[in-house]
């Protein structure tokens, strides 16, 4: 699997009088983890919404390899191998398996007719992909809950379902919006391990939005810092940590990173 680089160039997003993203640029090198940090309202989720095609920027470009993403519908971007999770959990009613199988939507073909008629190829496809989905569930640590209703799972497990569902797309770029927000210390550590594991095992690029600075410092190869929609710093975790502008705008107010979501 070849992972192309993700290039965000001069992206500007405006909402009725508010500039949520102002000329933001960064590049996610193939197979790296790129953290996007900044105080609440800095525009991180807005940036994810641009990357996944939910918002169209007023200006700028997003390229995955040679493909321009800003003009594509979200489902086309997903088909190119960009998967994401949401800051507030957004999963479907039903079982964990149902959710993960939704994640395999673009990798499967069965249409209305084949499914309605229970055609052998549709059933075989479903069986094969269910097995793959189960593997993903195990990778993320929710294998035991594969057939459980998501409504019965703990908050942390539901966060993991979202991650597993995104992984089920077999993405080349994974966008994680505050994956450990609201988790306790033990759950955070496990989640960090999982993210680390999937990145090394699957070789994908990760864009990580997170307030937990410890986690960011541990996982990120590169960090981009946003404040009021503008990029105020950029570099390795160590460089960013020492950047006076960052300390003033961000770390100063959210001491050592245990900021709430």
């Amino acid at each position: 699997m070849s992972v192309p680089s993700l290039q965000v160039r001069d992206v500007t997003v405006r909402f009725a009088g508010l500039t949520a993203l102002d000329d933001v640029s960064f590049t996610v090198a193939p197979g790296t983890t790129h953290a996007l940090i900044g105080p609440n309202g800095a525009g991180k989720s807005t940036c994810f919404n641009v990357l996944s095609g939910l918002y169209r920027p007023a200006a700028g470009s997003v390229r995955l390899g040679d493909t321009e993403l800003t003009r594509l519908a979200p489902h086309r971007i997903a088909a190119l191998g960009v998967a994401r999770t949401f800051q507030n959990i957004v999963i479907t009613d039903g079982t964990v398996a149902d959710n993960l199988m939704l994640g395999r939507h673009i990798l499967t073909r069965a249409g209305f007719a084949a499914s309605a008629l229970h055609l052998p190829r549709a059933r075989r496809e479903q069986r094969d992909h269910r097995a793959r989905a189960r593997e993903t569930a195990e990778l993320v640590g929710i294998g035991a809950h594969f057939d459980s209703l998501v409504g019965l799972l703990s908050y942390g497990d539901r966060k993991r379902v979202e991650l597993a569902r995104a992984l089920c797309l077999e993405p080349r770029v994974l966008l994680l919006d505050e994956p450990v927000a609201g988790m306790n210390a033990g759950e955070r550590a496990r989640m960090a391990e999982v993210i680390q594991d999937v990145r090394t095992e699957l070789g994908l690029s990760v864009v990580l939005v997170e307030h937990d600075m410890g986690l960011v410092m541990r996982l990120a190869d590169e960090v981009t810092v946003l404040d009021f929609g503008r990029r105020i710093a950029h570099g390795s975790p160590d460089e960013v940590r020492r950047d006076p502008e960052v300390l003033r705008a961000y770390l100063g107010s959210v001491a050592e990173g245990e900021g709430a979501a």
Partner: protein
Amino acid sequence: MSDRRLVKPVAVAALAVLLCLPPFYLDAFWLRIGLFSLAAAIGATGLSLLSGTAGQLSLGHAFFLAVGAYGYTWLAGDPGPGLPTALAALLAVLLAGAAGGLFSPVAGRVRGIYLGVATLALVFLGHHLLLTADSVTGGFNGRSVPPLAVGGFAFTGDDPGLTVLGVPFGAEERLWYLALALFALTWFTARGLLRSRPGRALAALRDSETAAAVMGVDVARYRSAAFVVSSMYAGLAGVLLALAFRRVVPDYFSLALSVDYLAMIVIGGLGTVAGATAGAVFVTALPLLMTRYADRLPLVAAPGSGDAGIGPTEAARYLYGAVVVVILLYAPDGLHGLARRVRARMRRRRTPAGQNTAPAVPPAPAARPKEHTP
């Protein structure tokens, strides 16, 4: 474990045999109740897919039922092309699907309660067309429906005459088996849809279009596909209803019919075939039974008796109106959800304490949270 796995096929087989028996034991009145219930179950399954699974509120189901019923009548009849009736039935179903597809530009743009209002317009438009397009629809008085005939076997009283095990097979007996076969087809196909890729995509649309889209679901395409599929089931139900009534009239396909179908899927439980079926039987059979037994019911006037009191049809509406309210309050996932929870509870009671394996089934929320902001 192995006997648990056997239970289901055995139960299904037993049910199938049981459903084949009524023509031998029940008279035409009961067969007609069953016939209308099965037709309604097919239509309700379609609406359940659209409104229950895909979350698109439709008050326009009566319109698509009418397309099926009138489509068949015209295609098989004179005036009309007078096609072989089986072909006309098939084309009527496709026609209803096409009508659903034509509506998809609207369905793709309008959501929630606004979609409900837009589909309402379909019912009024349809009713107007049925009244005015005399040459096709027969106008206010409607048209008589050509009986279905497959390979020389007609679903009427006597063509050819047929007696099975001493029971003369008239129209009701024959149509019963037709309805049963079409219902089985509906059950089979709808379960196939719901439990596979398209069904999951539709359910994802209902819970969050945003999440569905970023998972790769083509939202516009699936929204319109839901309308097409739902309308095809409605069309099939329409054909069957036309055959059972033997006459189609515009007034049957009114807003009240759409509301009846919504009541069916709410009472039965949204998004499942079993639920749609249970609701369809309840809503269909209730007024017919109340009419039949009106003289024995308090407060209900027998039809044509001139007594003070409410007529049995209205009484049935009040009753299931009340049932809808009770269900929304106490069992928002309908009869189907209720049955599921009772079963789960019985299973837990049977397993010895301490090794409690069956998970509790929580009631689904009545109103699903619609869109989440990303």
